[in-house]
């Protein structure tokens, strides 16, 4: 179930604030569009000059009309045009959608980055929330305050094939064997959804992972996980039927996975109808939501950059992430 989106073009402050914000966006984009058109015109002129400078000396040379000096001049001019085009391509924004999202999210108080280099994907792999043997495309990192919690969220999608150079074979090592089983079990399913990293209100040292049961290797071998520790059997039958928990510290696992937290995780899965994986590491909570939803969707070609409906889409996505964190009650006031 999607959390309720704002019914009117989505601002909490009311219509006036909405119009003012849209107007501000419109002005900024109008400026950006003007710049883009200007650069586009210059780039087109340079391109045609470049083509002309290439063709003319060639034709002139064959016809014997142009002298060598003039031909060299044309070639030099072509070189300058080429460099000019390259410079303009560098200056021109490559991805207008990225600009749209960046502007909108900036106005809503969030930091946006298209590239996912800064996102701690490796942590998700170490916590077995994502398989090490599959490629994941991460994009659209949004950072900021979601429902009172400092968090970073991004869109994630996996490819079915394994990474180049990965050798899915057993080398007499339990971890390798389990990685193979894990990868094999994972590769049958697909991941499309989002990843969230958020501050956890309680301090902790160890690592703990909560994984959906259907994504696990055979239960006999599941206790042999290296790195995520041993199996943690919790009091809730419903939880044990749906999830498997592992931790490097049995006591701290129970400190993190309190009975109320267990209920919240179960509720999260049913409300959002998603495959939920949760990991605790380095004082942060890592959430992998395989919900089949495209997070932070692009505006699309047919839409105006300042389309209020797109602003609503972005707001709905932010509200969606906020609802996940709210459901887990990660607000600073909660230490339970």
């Amino acid at each position: 179930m999607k959390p309720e989106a704002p019914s009117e073009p989505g601002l909490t402050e009311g219509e006036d604030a909405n119009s003012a914000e849209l107007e501000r966006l419109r002005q900024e984009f109008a400026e950006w569009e003007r710049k883009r058109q200007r650069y586009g015109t210059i780039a087109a002129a340079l391109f045609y000059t470049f083509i002309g400078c290439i063709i003319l000396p060639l034709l002139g040379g064959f016809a014997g009309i142009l002298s060598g000096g003039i031909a060299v001049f044309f070639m030099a001019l072509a070189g300058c045009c080429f460099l000019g085009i390259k410079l303009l391509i560098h200056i021109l924004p490559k991805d207008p959608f990225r600009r749209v999202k960046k502007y909108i999210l900036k106005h809503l108080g969030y930091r946006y980055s298209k590239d996912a280099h800064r996102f701690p994907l490796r942590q998700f792999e170490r916590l077995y929330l994502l398989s090490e043997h599959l490629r994941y495309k991460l994009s659209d990192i949004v950072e900021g305050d979601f429902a009172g919690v400092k968090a970073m969220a991004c869109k994630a999608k996996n490819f079915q094939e394994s990474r180049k150079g990965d050798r899915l074979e057993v080398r007499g090592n339990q971890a390798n064997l389990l990685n193979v089983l894990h990868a094999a079990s994972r590769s049958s399913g697909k991941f499309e959804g989002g990843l969230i990293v958020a501050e956890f209100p309680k301090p902790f040292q160890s690592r703990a992972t909560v994984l959906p049961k259907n994504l696990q290797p055979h239960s006999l071998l599941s206790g042999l996980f290296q790195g995520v520790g041993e199996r943690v059997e919790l009091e809730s039958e419903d939880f044990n039927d749906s999830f498997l928990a592992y931790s490097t510290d049995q006591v701290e696992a129970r400190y993190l996975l309190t009975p109320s937290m267990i209920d919240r995780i179960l509720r999260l899965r049913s409300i959002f109808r998603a495959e939920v994986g949760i990991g605790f590491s380095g004082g942060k909570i890592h959430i992998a939501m395989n919900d089949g939803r495209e997070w932070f969707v692009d505006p699309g070609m047919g839409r105006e950059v300042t389309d209020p409906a797109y602003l609503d889409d972005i707001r709905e996505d932010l509200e969606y992430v906020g609802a996940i964190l709210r459901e887990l009650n990660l607000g600073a006031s909660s230490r339970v």
Partner: protein
Amino acid sequence: MDPMIVYGVPAIICIGLYFWYASIISRKNKALEALSSVDVQLQKRFDLVPNILKLAQRFMDHEKELLTRVVELRAKVQQPYSPTDPTELAAHLEASQALETGLGRLFALAENYPDLKSDATIIRAQETYEEVEGHISAARRYYNAAVSDLNNAVEIFPGSVIAGFARVKTMPFYEIDNPEWRKPVDVDSVMRL
């Protein structure tokens, strides 16, 4: 009679009994490990008590009786015990529980002393105490899960026979038995705090 049956059946029974015995011993060790993690957490609380008492004494002159009781309970928790003796273990866990109740009462009464309540050190001490209590609660859950496993293995036949030979006994649960918590909550007094 077929020698395979003569030697094979007793051999299979012996192997089965050995695995049963091994599982009981490993459950006992797991319960003892869980008990030691409870003790580690209780020690944290134990170390915290003198600081809390020192702070409380400055402001809570009228609660001398309670402060003395907490000191006594702390001394009782400190007494050595044998983890393999269920009676001694139960007494140790009961004393720890009583200390928890006493400290809980102390913090509840601290609400009546505005100077104490607003003191930065006591606020920090209370936060640390809550964190330690969270860890104790987690350790208790781990211990009770391990004890439940052990007690099932020890009490259910034929585990009871093997446990008798191995001299493995059931262990007591670390239960929350606080009569204060069973009382109905007075919402008005809570809202006033």
